[in-house]
């Protein structure tokens, strides 16, 4: 293997202090994610799947263990270095979209580029381009309050994509969406995956995990199963091209 894996985690633990009690959110997880994989992380609430995603996303630092991102040890980096990694390497999609209120789709999408120091004109150009890519070329000036849930999540995906990340992390991206919109969003993510983007998706819903090519199951802070399979497009889903159709 010439290139190191995108994500390589060795015996990662995370312990939270909750008052007097210690909570072991991760009890020693080892995992490798190669570039291009579409991974879903499943598990009941409290299984540690969100904690794992936060650690992979460099939003948090592990209590112990190693985390090599593209071969580079990142588990001991300071807040500034982690912020830089999040800015350049990661894209985040959240269950509750987390768009800035009363702020246009375009301004929401260009946010990561502000912190990357990209000049304003270039930011706007790329924001428009990325919004078109997710099928929102006609919603540039709309505020989150003027858009449906599916549209908001697509703005959030555009925001995650604009920095050309190596890794897209999605935390229950369909948790707040109805099933039809969920399928649209999953089809969009699958399209991105087919185009070569590495995606790690946290979900508790098996029908969402079906879209992915690898399913990890966590229980009590440990990986209890790791299934690889051919990525399937669930029968009920619209074809990938559907996301290009204006809603």
């Amino acid at each position, binding site marked *: 293997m010439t290139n190191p894996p995108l994500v390589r985690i060795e015996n990662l633990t995370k312990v939270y202090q909750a008052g007097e009690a210690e909570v072991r959110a991760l009890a020693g997880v080892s995992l490798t994610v190669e570039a291009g994989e579409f991974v879903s992380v499943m598990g009941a609430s409290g299984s540690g799947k969100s904690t794992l995603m936060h650690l992979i996303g460099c939003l948090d630092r592990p209590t112990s263990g190693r985390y090599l991102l593209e071969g580079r040890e990142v588990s001991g980096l300071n*807040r*500034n270095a982690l912020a*830089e990694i*999040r800015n350049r390497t990661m894209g985040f999609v959240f269950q509750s979209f*987390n*768009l800035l209120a009363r702020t246009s789709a375009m301004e929401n999408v260009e946010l990561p580029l*502000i912190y990357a*120091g990209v000049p*304003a004109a270039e930011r706007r150009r790329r924001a428009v381009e990325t919004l078109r890519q997710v099928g929102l070329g006609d919603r540039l000036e709309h505020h989150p309050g003027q858009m449906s849930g599916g549209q908001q999540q697509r703005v959030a995906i555009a925001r995650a994509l604009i920095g050309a990340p190596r890794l897209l992390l999605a935390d229950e991206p369909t948790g707040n969406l109805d099933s039809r919109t969920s399928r649209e969003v999953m089809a969009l993510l699958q399209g991105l995956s087919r185009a070569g983007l590495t995606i790690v998706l946290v979900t508790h819903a098996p029908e969402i995990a079906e879209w992915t090519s690898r399913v990890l199951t966590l229980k009590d802070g440990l990986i209890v199963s790791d299934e690889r399979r051919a990525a399937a497009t669930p029968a009920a889903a619209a074809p990938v091209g559907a996301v290009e159709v204006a809603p």
Partner: protein
Amino acid sequence: MTPWTVLRLAFRALGRNTMRSFLTALGIIIGVGAFIAMVVIGEGAKARVEEAFSSMGTNLLVIQSGSSSQRGVFGGFGSMPTLTWDDLKAIQTEVPSVRHAAPQLRSTASIIGEELNWTTSVTGVTPDYFEIRNWQVDSGVPFTSSDIDAATKVVLLGRTVVDRLYGPGADPVGQTVRIKSMPFQVIGLMARKGQSPMGQDYDDAVFIPVSTFRSKIQGGLSNFIAGSIFVGASSPEATSKAEREVRSLLRDRHRLSAEVDDDFQIRNLTEIATAQQEGTRTLTTLLASIAAVSLIVGGIGIMNIMLVSVTERTREIGVRMAVGAKPRHILAQFLTEALSLSVLGGVVGALLGLLSASRLAARFGWPMLVRPGIVVVALVFSAIVGVVFGLYPAQRASRLDPIEALRYE
């Protein structure tokens, strides 16, 4: 992230809550406005006092005779004549720090014009008197030393007297008025001087040669001066020196031993003027400090709102951090918001302060004196208030944990 981008972000955030931003800035607006108005008005009042004192005369000492006491009743200064004409001559010739010394004899008399009469102060003086008091004749001519020598019956009228006898704007130079039924020729009119710092009308007086006053008005030629001596020192700095020298000269001439009090009184009007200005300055400082306190209260308002804003926008901060904002980016953003509020408030406050000061100045007829420095001081101070009171909330924002911030409900 360029400063320009930071500023734009700050203005966007403030613009999302216009009413709140305005109310927050209002504290600073009022503080800076009050501060500038107070200082500008204070400067105007000070200039007004200076003006009043300069019309009284410059570097001025006034010497009066001592007080009389008969059976325990004290008559007040001037009631017992102790100053002699020889004293005056000695002051004129023997004290180097004195440039001029002139007598002033006063009496109240009725002046009769062509149709009207007016009772006013008749003052006997020498030409030096006008030099000392810095008073000018703006129509006709002043009297000269030959008028003093010959005791001519000439008179200079104050403007109020002219108004009363001839009506406003009249020019009665060359006409004759009667003082104590004696005809005096009007040779000139005094320039308008306004009020003394004590509110006395300087223009309600007429001036005649002191020799004429002694022979015709006062009656009886005494060796003593039944009035005051006005002394003009050679410079403002020399005023105190002149006071000391005149005092020791008079004590010598009156043969007063060391333990005996002065039998005359010297008033140093420069000192009085300085004291008055000091008083005005103290009042200005007091008012300006109260205004400055209100500026600090405005700063606390900013801090309060910024803390609320940080709490409200915890999720936003989490999102910004997730997409790559470093702690210093967050710090810069919130600090810039606080700074924008305080500086904008400062600019608006400065404009309002200048506006209200000019209104008040126009209303009270004060000069409007704006030192640009004071506006700069107010703006710098409001910026400092913004930084000081914005720093704590901004630091709190920048130290948030991204995960907790994202989870915040």
